[in-house]
């Protein structure tokens, strides 16, 4: 697994909001199931001293860090406050920052990621479902019931499409090491390249499913620089040019980043590309048997 395990202590920013409260409950239910530490502290400015599902809430990240051993965080604050939340956590020394928040202006994200990088922190997202390592840790909002433990890593720009693929894999008896939703925005912290590097150093991960979509060329850049066996799927073959397909980053611009050319470049690099999600399990099986 990558980006954390059972021993990882998690902080949640936006702990007292509707989303934060709901998902602290689910993350800690998962932690109890697998014997992990889960969410140990929450932060909402002005709500220090409260509790959410028994988790103590602090006014600042630094206060929470002085009382608890924390190395990761999940952010649920509104778009206008999310970049600030990322920077506060990076400044306090949190290693892995998962930002769920959608609709953050790109310039705010660029600044927050540049700052976090200077502080030595990793950012996953924004506009992502977080990550889940079956049997180890859940940081984010992925529905744990669909997952099973195994050797296949999954990297995706999407949320529900990831669940669809994970569900297919699990039904086919193919378990996952870590499933990472890297986010649907044009600028995200950990890209395919970064996550693939993590998977390369992870003894549990033997193959990777890469789920991309229209916009940019980071899928191809990632696939080019790894030796891990990969199966790819690219959503948006039917996406018209210059239209944002739900995600801020899912747009074919200036004739670039369309699905067909992405698929062609992946195939040229020897990466098998599924034409629909239900083909993925068989293609992964073929990677393992080498046929």
């Amino acid at each position, binding site marked *: 697994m990558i980006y954390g395990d059972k021993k990882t202590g998690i902080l949640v920013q936006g702990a007292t909001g509707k989303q934060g409260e*709901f998902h602290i409950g689910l993350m800690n239910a998962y932690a109890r199931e697998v014997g992990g530490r889960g969410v140990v502290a929450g932060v909402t400015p002005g709500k220090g001293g409260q509790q959410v599902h028994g988790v103590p809430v602090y006014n600042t990240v630094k206060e929470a860090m002085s009382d608890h051993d924390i190395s990761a965080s999940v952010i649920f604050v509104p*778009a206008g406050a999310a970049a600030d939340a990322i920077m506060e956590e990076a400044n306090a020394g949190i290693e892995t920052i998962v930002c769920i928040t959608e*609709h*953050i*202006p*790109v*310039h705010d994200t*660029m*600044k927050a*990621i*540049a700052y976090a990088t200077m502080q030595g922190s990793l950012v996953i997202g924004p506009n992502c479902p977080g990550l889940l390592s079956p049997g180890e840790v859940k940081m984010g*909002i*992925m*529905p*744990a*019931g*669909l997952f099973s433990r195994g050797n296949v890593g999954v990297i995706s720009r*999407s*949320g*529900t*499409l*990831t*669940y*669809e693929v994970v*569900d297919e894999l699990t039904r086919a008896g193919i378990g996952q090491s870590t499933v990472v939703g890297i986010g*649907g925005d*044009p*600028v*995200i*912290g950990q*890209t395919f390249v970064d996550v693939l590097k993590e998977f390369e150093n992870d003894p549990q991960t033997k193959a990777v499913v890469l*789920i991309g*979509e*229209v*916009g*940019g*060329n*980071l899928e191809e*850049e990632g696939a080019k620089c790894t030796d891990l066996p990969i199966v790819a799927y690219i*959503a*948006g*073959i*039917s*996406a*018209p040019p210059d*239209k*944002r*397909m*739900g*995600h*801020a*980053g*899912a747009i074919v611009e*200036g*004739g670039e980043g369309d*699905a067909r050319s992405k698929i062609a470049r992946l195939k040229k690099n020897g990466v098998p590309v599924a*034409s*629909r*999600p*239900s083909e993925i399990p068989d293609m992964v099986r073929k990677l393992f048997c080498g046929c």
Partner: protein
Amino acid sequence: MKLREHEAKKVIKEYGIPVPAGFLIRTAAELPALLDALGDKIVLKAQVDVGGRGKAGGILMADKKTAVATAETLFKKEIKGLPVKEILAEQQLDIQHEYYLSITVDRSSKQPLILFTEAGGVDIEITAKEMPGAIKKVIATPLMRDLPPFMLRELAGKAPREIMPIINKLYRVFLEKDALLAEINPLVTTPQGVFAADAKIIVDDNALGRQGFTVNRDLTDREREAEKHGFSYVELNGAIGVIGNGAGLTMSTLDLIEFYGGKAANFLDVGGGAESERVMHAVRLVASVPSVKVIVVNLLGGITKCDEVAKGIIAAGISQKVIVRLAGTNEAEGRRLLTEKGYEMLPTMDSVVKKAVEVTA
């Protein structure tokens, strides 16, 4: 959202980048009073939200005598199907050399990317292919308000010295106006100095509010209506309406329709935790598209409550056929409600899409 040329020029002018003398007119009758300020040679540019307007006849040259008649001609034209409601009347520049300058968001480095070339005035994509060495690239850090002088020197090369402050001013525009793209093409030298002959700015849709925009002009009426309900919506032109949760899953559903030989009418992402009322609005919105014969609902997720979705579909009470794939909490209750009312519910994404394509074939 794309700014129109006259809007983009107004923005860069505020930042001190010289633009040609120009006026926005809505009728040809406004022109005579402006002729003295415009000089002898005039260019009339249709302000339409479409690319390649020059080749489509949206830019006309004139002089003092022909200006009014030429403007009348341009107002009567349609540029790529769009009526000309506004014209930017500008002085013609005495161009000596054309440069290209653009600033974009670079996904790979996660930072602003600045491109400059002395081989401007032509299609930048062609320059990139034919003489990639002619395009100078610099990655900037978004944490600095100004570009360090060395970056400006690297970009400008042998170009006239007045270019360097213009690059920095455009960088300020890019940062402060939440731009995804700020471009001057061409940036020209004339005996009177350096001017931005054309300008393009795209503002981040997620920053429109703080940039003072109340509506996103890039959206169609129905797309705007969808936005009010918090849906992501894109109009296409097939017969199969699509409602999904999550952008990736919804896109993948459209692709599957194409895979099985059908055509999607739209993309509609209802978002997370869809309650019955939201689902009802989504179904009604898609059903209101005249070309829609059948609607595919593909919802998957831990927190989606299937009984809520079922209630929403039933409440919408539309005449077209609805085929449903639901996975999540209260799945059995959702299926009971739907089958009771005669709706079809199928277990997989492939099966709902196949069925919908059959219905429309």
